[in-house]
């Protein structure tokens, strides 16, 4: 971007980053995630054209409309494969994906597993409110047993998904948990995720004040709960330890459960390509294709 590179640009202001006024209900946890995303972008001096914000469908997924930058509001559950497309084809961009628990673990459950296993270099923040917000209070894959919703009026009956364990067993290389009630922690997790090379997954507890009020009080000191960081001696490279300590869902622990270094999808594809590019170096595209056509003569 030569035209813009000439001027030393200062980090964007909050005003320059804000787009539509968020349509979330008052008190919704998603507000903090948006505010700290702005902070992250400012801290890292990312300009409008350097990143892409992608989401699926849900209250949380309305995110891209609130961010003044290139954004995509895709379909329910498929934000990850969409984001993979942009992350692989435009490796110059930082790609951030936001969404809800239904989007991530129900309709998009299998994409989550495969994106993790492929270790696509992007940051994925799931705003987990343990409920379907946008469709007005149905059971979500993370709703605890007993949660009374419109589809389980006597209380949810199915065992909920454990996002940390799901991510670890699927092969994610960065797995962290945070909550909207602790902005400092939330920001530090976002920064760590962004710095990670590979698939970085954050579960952010984000209360739905409308349909699941008080869901996370047990982890909120202001509501009499306790914010428990992972023990100091927790070794995030120890897969078994990470898996074991993520057994407890609510309130559970906060911090980086698991982080290892493994070549990203971008890296492994570049490695494959490097072998071929050695052979096609200096050739124009049509000359490479001509080789195939010559073999069909």
């Amino acid at each position, binding site marked *: 971007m030569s035209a813009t590179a000439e001027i030393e640009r200062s980090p964007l202001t909050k005003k320059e980053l804000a787009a539509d006024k968020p349509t979330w209900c008052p008190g919704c946890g998603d507000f903090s995630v948006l505010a700290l995303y702005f902070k992250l972008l400012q801290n890292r001096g990312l300009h409008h054209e350097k990143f892409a914000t992608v989401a699926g469908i849900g209250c949380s997924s309305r995110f891209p*409309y609130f961010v003044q930058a290139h954004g*995509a509001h895709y379909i329910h559950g498929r934000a990850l494969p969409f984001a993979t*497309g942009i992350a692989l084809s435009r490796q110059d*961009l930082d790609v951030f994906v936001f969404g809800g628990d239904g989007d991530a673990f129900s309709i998009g459950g299998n994409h989550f597993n*495969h994106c993790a296993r492929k270790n696509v270099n992007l940051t994925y923040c799931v705003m987990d409110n343990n409920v379907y917000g946008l469709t007005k209070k149905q059971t979500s894959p993370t709703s605890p047993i007993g949660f009374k919703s419109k589809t389980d009026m006597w209380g949810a009956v199915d065992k909920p998904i454990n996002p940390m364990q799901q991510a670890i067993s699927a092969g994610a290389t960065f797995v962290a948990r945070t909550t909207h009630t602790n902005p400092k922690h939330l920001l530090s997790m976002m920064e760590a995720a962004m710095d990670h090379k590979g698939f970085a997954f954050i579960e952010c507890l984000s209360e739905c004040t409308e349909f699941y009020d008080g869901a996370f009080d047990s982890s909120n000191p202001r509501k009499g709960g306790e914010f428990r960081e992972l023990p100091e001696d927790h070794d995030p490279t120890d897969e078994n330890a990470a898996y074991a300590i993520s057994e407890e869902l609510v309130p559970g622990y906060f911090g980086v459960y698991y982080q290892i270094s493994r070549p990203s999808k971008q890296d492994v594809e570049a490695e494959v390509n490097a072998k*071929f590019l050695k052979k096609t170096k200096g050739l124009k595209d*049509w000359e490479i*294709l001509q080789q195939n*056509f010559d073999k069909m003569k």
Partner: protein
Amino acid sequence: MSDSSTADEAVSEDPKVSKIHEAVIRIAGNSQDGIQSIGGFLARLAGRSEQEVMTFMTIPSTISGGPSIFQVRLSSGEVLSSGDEADVLMAFYQHSYDNHTDFVKEGGIILYDTAHVEPNPEMEKRFRHIGCPIAELTVEAIGGTAKDKGKNIFALGLIARMFDLDGKRLEGLIAERFLGKPENVTETALSAFHAGNAYPLTTLAEIYEFEEPKARDTEQVVCTGNEALGYGILASGVRFGAGYPITPWSDIMELLRRELPKYDGIFVQCEDEIAAVSMAIGASWGGRVAITGSSGPGIALKGEAIGWAVMAEIPLLVIDVQRGGPSTGMPTNVEQSDLNIACFGGHGDSPRVVIAPSSVEDCFYTAIEAVNIARKYSTPVIILTDQAIATRIEAFGMPNLKETCQDISPDLTPREDHKPYDLSDPDGITQHAAPGTFIKSGKYPVVTGLEHNEMGHPSGSPKMHLDMTAKRHNKLKALGRELPKPEVFGPEEGNVLLVGWGSTQGSLREATERARKAGDSISALTIRHINPLPEGLEDIFSGFNHVFVVENNDGGLYGYGQLCGLLRARYCDTKIQGINKTDGLTWRVKDVLSRVQAKLEDNN
């Protein structure tokens, strides 16, 4: 086999040599015998000898194999279809013999393996039989015990002798084929070929020699439709693809996975078709059109995402290699029954572009055309091919790659201002500014599936939904106005117009030629642009008493197929009628003609 001159006066012991114009050879055996490769070699030889060629094959859908045929039509003149009748049947087994003698021309030749086939005395009266211990002689020639291995190459030698084919060129092709394999593999293959080629065809009274084909000014290449499409995608400048395996689409994704790294591109094998289409759309948003594809079942899965691409106006290339459906259907058979899902399979009002290439060569150029339409009109474009065109081999002129290959790298030029869904163009045509584009006004676009305003932000306004819905169809109307009016094959006025699309083009054209020779007034029309339709079709139809739309799909509840339904809806003309079949096989010329006859009698 059309003899064009009388036999040479040959020495008495030698078989006489007859000049022929063309030949249809059907090889019937089991898929694991490698009969496809015999056909492949013959087709490539034809291409190198400037002949025309078209092949047809059936393959069992199970991996363990089963009965399979490969048919090659070689000609010194034009080849439109793979041929109704075989001049020569090569039968490896009893089932090959029993099931395919019907297909041989009266007086034609049946070459059979004496180890496996017991000829039928009735048939011996009708066809010339030549027995050869194929399996036994192959083992003798190449040694070892590998039962049935190399039989195909032996058979190729036999055919080469019978048709006096260029042995040196065939040897060259065999050597090329096994290039990179251990040397003894090539040697073994060549031994099998020589043994077949040296077999004394004493019972064969004559040898056939093809007429010299007319010289061509371009070199020929020989490949399948799937290959032509795959290479067309590379030529179009596409550098990202995503897919999930399914027959008969998989060949294309395998080709792209193999070739794209040479151009620093990527093809991703995804967890399912929904991920694949989503990944391709995400990549396209990055500013360079991407591709996904599948066959019927996978196209159904991609439906929601294609609807999003229509709404968000993202360019996208989707390949649908049709097969027999619904559901798993007949995975290795031909059918043209996805036209409706391609054109109308979206939720909501979601117009999209659908193009059906009508020959192997056309597959190559259609890929490029489709990409350019997708870019210009910011729309998904679906290329509808089918199993027949995907797997058949044809020869065509070497494309000028230097001129056809295009660079479609993202354009990230900074802009003053940008409205992704600007309504000011009367034709509704807009293009996106890809992520990475600096926009001076500081107002950035969102691409979205929610109904939106010009900036891509949600809008529930009734007027906006009206205007944006119109924008989405207006741009395709504009495209419709730009499309070339298709050319009628044959006179532009007459009694019957046969309308077809995709792989049936050759059979319909040959039917037209044959009928006209017999004095009937029939012309043919191929519709490549299915959605939008080109303008001016009603003028063409008005020149004919009957318009019969011949398709490889079901006539359904009301007696007409999917393209026919679209044309009837569009032109409200009851003279547009359907001729359909769903046997999973390509149309034979004689079947087209007999069905036309029956339809005409019905109408009278």
